[in-house]
């Protein structure tokens, strides 16, 4: 319940502030999105598994975004930025789908 409210609060905050993303930050936005989705699905699954831990949730989200951005930043400097960003999206995407499947199994027992 608190989580849903906080999610809504974040959305409203973004809508009110409407921050302009600086150009240098724009390439990292898709990665941040995928990492955020991964955190949401991971946290939801952990809650359903009964092992949710708030600290792990926040730390894993922030560190995932940071590490993913760092990898892509490094890749950009070495000329493989787009490939590495694809790799990040693929790895996190697999996790998202796996967690979504686990949530589905929890909810529908199917």
């Amino acid at each position, binding site marked *: 319940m608190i989580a849903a409210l906080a*999610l809504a609060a974040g959305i409203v905050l973004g*809508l009110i502030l409407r921050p302009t993303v600086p150009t240098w930050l724009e390439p990292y936005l898709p990665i941040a999105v995928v990492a955020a989705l991964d955190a949401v699905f991971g946290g939801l699954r952990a809650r359903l598994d009964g092992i949710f831990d708030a600290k792990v949730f926040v730390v894993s989200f922030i560190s995932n975004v940071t590490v993913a951005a760092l990898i892509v930043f490094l890749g950009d400097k070495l000329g493989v930025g787009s490939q590495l960003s694809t790799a990040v999206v693929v790895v996190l995407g697999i996790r998202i789908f796996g967690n979504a499947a686990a949530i589905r199994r929890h909810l529908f027992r199917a």
Partner: protein
Amino acid sequence: MTASGDKSQPDAVRLLVDLVNDHLDPGYAAAAERRGPDPEQRWYDNVAVIIGCALVGFVLIVAYITTHRGAPEAAKVHDRLVDRVRSAQDTANDLSNRVNELQGRLDRAQAQVLSPTGDLAKSLDLARLQAGLTAVSGPGVVVTLREPSGPSSTPTTGRGGTTGIGSTNILTDRDVRSVVNELWHDGAEAISVNDVRLTPTSAIRFAGEAVLVDFQPITSPYHVAAIGDADLLATNFAQSAVASRYQTLTGVEGIGFSFADESNLSLPASQQVRVRYATVPTQRKQGHR
């Protein structure tokens, strides 16, 4: 690690198996193990959840806004430009209708003043005919030039405005011009290109990807209609170098080229002949000489 406890696998294989099977962050399991089966509530649990969820929502909405901020703006600019072009076209049409209407009134006024059988009226009629100011009809030939259909005529992908002139069009103003000049040469008395009447001051030019006849853009297929002695025109044109050149190009480039004589063609009047530099010497000047 839960799913892939098999230690006999090599590390690389286990990494892939983990990737596919072990979706949950191992941190959750580790934390649960560390804190035991019935952990007490810590003071920062709710705060962390709130911060984390708000952060997630913020990131998602910022990404959404950033993605959608650019796209509608481009569409808006495009729509505005289209609107401006449309309204400019409407204005041009209105103005040309007005020109025609005023021209009609002028003609009627002239007819009232000049006696219809007089020499002045006759020479005026002839001059207007030759200047292309009246609609005419009569026998003649129609020459049709057509861009080849298929991939060679589709614009290349790329940023707007970067396509070079003529890189997508095989037929240009030069082709239309050479056909028109050949028809004049063959004895045509009046010519129109895609229903734009040519006058002694008409220019056939090329701008962007369109041929302009008297600044009116026309596109393929180009119908050049010429009034004159149909047999003579057709024979002369068939024997001309221009005709044989486009016959050859039909085979090589795939353009469409055909001509046929017509028993009754009607050509519209030209909208305007504006003489900017040439003037008729006034009577007084002649008298002084």
